[in-house]
């Protein structure tokens, strides 16, 4: 196993990078980060629409969210892979295809987190803001969202872990992410499939476990802060 790591570690981390396109673990991380970053504004907008007082805004968004949550991500990837070219007219590369599918997906899941965050803000805050003369929009913008988004940080990290795991589906459309590179290494070595895939699993594990521990730590600290804030005399 050490020999395996010794020979292929660079290929595993960046793919054929200096002599070819970026791949491997670096590509996986880049894809997950971009997906979350671009999915975030979409998530906030969808989340706000989901709690909007206008049914004309609320219903289509709810329907969209149900459709995306009811289909496998792979289906979204397939649609993006085969239909983006026929809609836009030119071929979309695999990275962009996967990124678009992931942005749609993480946007919808983030919207649910945003909605939960908004509902998590005590009702007194809304009433207070409204009685101070702020409208629906300004209440949201200056009172609710700042509190909701801060409380969402652990969920965001968990969503990142989820997205990181989902980037592995890029393998299916031939994106050179870390799962794909592992398969290539497996083909090159040929005799040690169990080791190669165990290393792949271990890599994902270290990343995702570390990140979700981080999320737990922040969550605990946050509840601690809230608790101590409640004890403070006003």
């Amino acid at each position, binding site marked *: 196993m050490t020999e395996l790591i010794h020979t292929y570690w660079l290929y595993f981390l960046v793919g054929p990078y200096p002599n070819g396109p970026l791949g491997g673990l670096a590509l996986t991380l880049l894809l997950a980060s971009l997906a979350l970053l671009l999915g975030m504004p979409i998530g906030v907008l969808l989340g706000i629409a989901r709690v909007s007082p206008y049914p004309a805004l609320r219903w289509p968004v709810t329907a969209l969210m149900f*459709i995306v949550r009811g289909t*496998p991500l*792979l289906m979204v990837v397939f649609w993006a892979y085969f239909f983006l070219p026929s809609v836009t007219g030119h071929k979309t590369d695999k990275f962009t295809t996967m990124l678009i599918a992931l942005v749609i997906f993480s946007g919808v899941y983030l919207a649910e987190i945003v909605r939960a965050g908004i509902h998590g803000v005590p009702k007194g805050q809304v009433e207070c803001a409204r009685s101070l003369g702020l409208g629906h929009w300004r209440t949201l913008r200056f009172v609710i969202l700042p509190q909701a988004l801060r409380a969402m940080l652990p969920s965001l990290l968990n969503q990142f872990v989820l997205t990181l795991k989902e980037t592995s589906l890029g393998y299916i459309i031939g994106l050179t992410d870390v799962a794909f590179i592992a*398969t290539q290494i497996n083909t090159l070595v040929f005799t040690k*499939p169990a080791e190669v*895939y165990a290393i792949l*699993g271990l890599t994902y594990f270290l990343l*995702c476990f570390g990140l979700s521990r981080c999320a737990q730590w922040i969550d605990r600290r946050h509840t601690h802060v809230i608790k101590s804030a409640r004890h403070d005399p006003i």
Partner: protein
Amino acid sequence: MPVFDYSLLLKGPYHDMLVAGLVLSLELAAATLVFALPLALLVALLRIAPVAVLRWIGFGFVEAIRNVPLLAHMLFWYFGAPELLPESVKLRIYQGNIEAISAVIALTLYTAAFMAEDVRSGIRAVPPRQFEASRALGLGYVATMHRVILPQAVAITVPPLISQTLNLWKNTSIATVIGAAELMYQAGQVESASFRSFESFAFATTAYLAVSLIITGLAVRYQQRFPARPA
């Protein structure tokens, strides 16, 4: 874009392929559910066991499996694991439907790890005084779990388990990477054979959505029949 061709989906070889895929997807989900539920219960009980070593085993199982993508599990159980077996066993396995078996193993472990957490939080939601009262009445640990805690935990655990079942249903699609001939795989096959990508993907999407809708409906019905009781 060419006209949407319904006849393709209603009869003929492509229709048969897609329906066979849907049936295999449902079978994968059902088989996984049968194996995953008892495993999840076992792991959940390990997670809250009174012995530290057992708790660590449960924790290790859950974290090791949840933090690795299902795709990597599939690849491992399909390409990696059979190579570790002795030659004679390997031959026998390769004669069977190795794709479906690997898929069920990967799905079972993956689903069980998530379900175990739901079962565990269901058990923890039962007030501790129930446990104490039961022990004070002279029931042992196992009897307390079996007669007092678990029956109450089941009611709390069912809704999250249904939503895990929804995830399981969507996750069956990943079995396509190892070539299990489920719905997603068949949709891809039909697409490449007929170039009718829109029709085949529309069929697959509708089928996935329909089953998801049924599962969500079950969850809603359950919550109407048995509304959450404050403990």
